[in-house]
């Protein structure tokens, strides 16, 4: 299988602090890969490296076999925090990327409206972000990223701020959108349930400092999936126990480090 995105021997240092050490991660075409790790282990750092927003101290990134220089233009990035422009309407936010690529205004508006409908926000295009709920803002952000038709989607705990019901809803919606048009996805989360139910592959990162991948699990659950129902199937529970066994140690390590104030 072709590798859409590959991180090779990545090390990131901030001053004397080694955030990520000698890490390699590969995402194949159409593959949904989740990265799970304890809080503050450098997951977001890794994603920023993949996006080209952060230059690694050592190592290489290749996108479709080509070394990455500058920003990763093949990638769309869904941020953990709210990154919508508060001075633009929902539609204005969704069409921002098209505008940056000089797509004619009428076409941009038309495609933006289509995307708003696709994420369940038809008729809300004229509202400003602060007039939308947290879940709606995430939908706008999702449409804003996906309208650009990126070949790779990077997601940094995109649903962590949502309440549990909205979250399951958004996860299912994400899966539907992804199934319709399989992209490569690199998804970061600290929620193991979320990682297993969405992904083809789950990668466990060690506790920081000097984070690196320590285990990789293939998720052989059948698709299409319903993220809520799949959580009660025997195979899911089996996988969950296997992965949690491995993850637990790291979480405890991170917890101990944070207790003594040397973590992060």
């Amino acid at each position, binding site marked *: 299988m072709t590798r859409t995105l590959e991180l090779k021997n990545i090390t990131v240092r901030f001053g004397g602090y080694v955030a990520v050490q000698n890490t390699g991660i590969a995402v194949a075409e159409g593959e949904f890969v989740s990265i799970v790790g304890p809080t503050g282990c450098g997951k977001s750092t890794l994603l920023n490296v993949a*996006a080209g927003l952060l230059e690694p101290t050592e190592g290489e990134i290749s996108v479709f076999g080509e070394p990455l220089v500058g*920003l990763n233009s093949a990638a769309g990035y869904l941020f953990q925090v709210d*990154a*919508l422009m508060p*001075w633009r309407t929902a539609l204005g936010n969704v069409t921002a990327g098209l505008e*940056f690529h000089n797509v004619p205004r009428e076409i941009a508006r038309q495609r933006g409206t289509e995307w708003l409908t696709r994420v369940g926000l038809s008729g809300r295009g004229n509202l400003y972000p*602060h007039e939308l709920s947290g879940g709606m803002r995430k939908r706008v952000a999702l449409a804003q*990223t996906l309208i650009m038709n990126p070949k790779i989607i990077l997601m940094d705990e995109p649903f962590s701020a949502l309440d549990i019901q909205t979250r399951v809803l958004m996860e299912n919606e994400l899966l539907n959108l992804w199934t319709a048009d399989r992209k490569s996805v690199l998804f970061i989360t600290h929620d193991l349930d979320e990682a297993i139910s969405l992904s083809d592959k789950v990668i466990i990162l060690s506790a920081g400092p000097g984070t690196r991948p320590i285990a990789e699990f293939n998720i052989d659950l059948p698709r299409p999936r319903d993220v809520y129902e799949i959580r009660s199937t025997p195979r899911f529970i089996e996988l969950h126990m296997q992965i949690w066994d491995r993850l637990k140690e790291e979480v405890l390590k991170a917890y101990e480090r944070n207790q003594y104030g040397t973590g992060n």
Partner: protein
Amino acid sequence: MGPATSGSVAAKRRPRPPRKWLPSRSTIAILQITVLVIILLAWYVLGKAKILPEFFFGDPVLVFGQIWDWTASGEIFIHLGITLSETLLGFAIGAILGVIGGIWLGLSPVAGALFDPYVKAINAMPRVILGPIFILWFGLGIISKVALAVSLVYFVVFFNVSQGVREVNPAILANARMLGASKRQLLRAVYIPSALSWVFSSLHTSVGMAFVGAVVGEYLGSAGGIGYLILQAESTFDVNAVFAGMVVLTVFALLLDLAITIIERRLIARRAS
């Protein structure tokens, strides 16, 4: 100290603190008008009783007579128009220059570091003293007043904008970059709108500054405007006209502030973040 230390506990236990007597809005309005009437009456009576020398303190009846004369003859509107146009021009030019300067110094660390001491020095200077220079340079017409207003507005906007630019939400910036924004597009789509929201938030202060600049400029030397009316009255020892000018200025400033509040509501209400 017993009751004081347990005060917070007691407050929590009590379902509602005893309600303070709050008069209705109309009662307050009546009381407010009463205060004004008492002050005016005291002024009038003390003046008539020769306790306040009329030469220095005037007579409220004559003050309002003067305002009436100005209004009836229409003279006041010409002067108000001059002061208003100086204020608005001063605000507009000062705000545009402030946004440009603020974005430039906010985005360029080198320029920021280079000009920092000069910006601080000019800001520390009481800029009203630039008035005489501006009158020398630009004459007694409207331009010298606009220049003074600009020099006052510029710094308010400049500081707000350069601060705002440095504090642009990094997630919004990274997001726009990932969506493909070039440097120029970042400026247009992120930096400028975010700077403008800071300008809006300092609208009351900066329009107020423009107004001060215009009036002080007129007072220093001019051929029209409310400041000019006061200057004229002062040089003929017409204390009633001085007071009348002050009243007109105050009412006008209040109206200006009201207009800004309305504009603000229209512009920002929906965008507030």
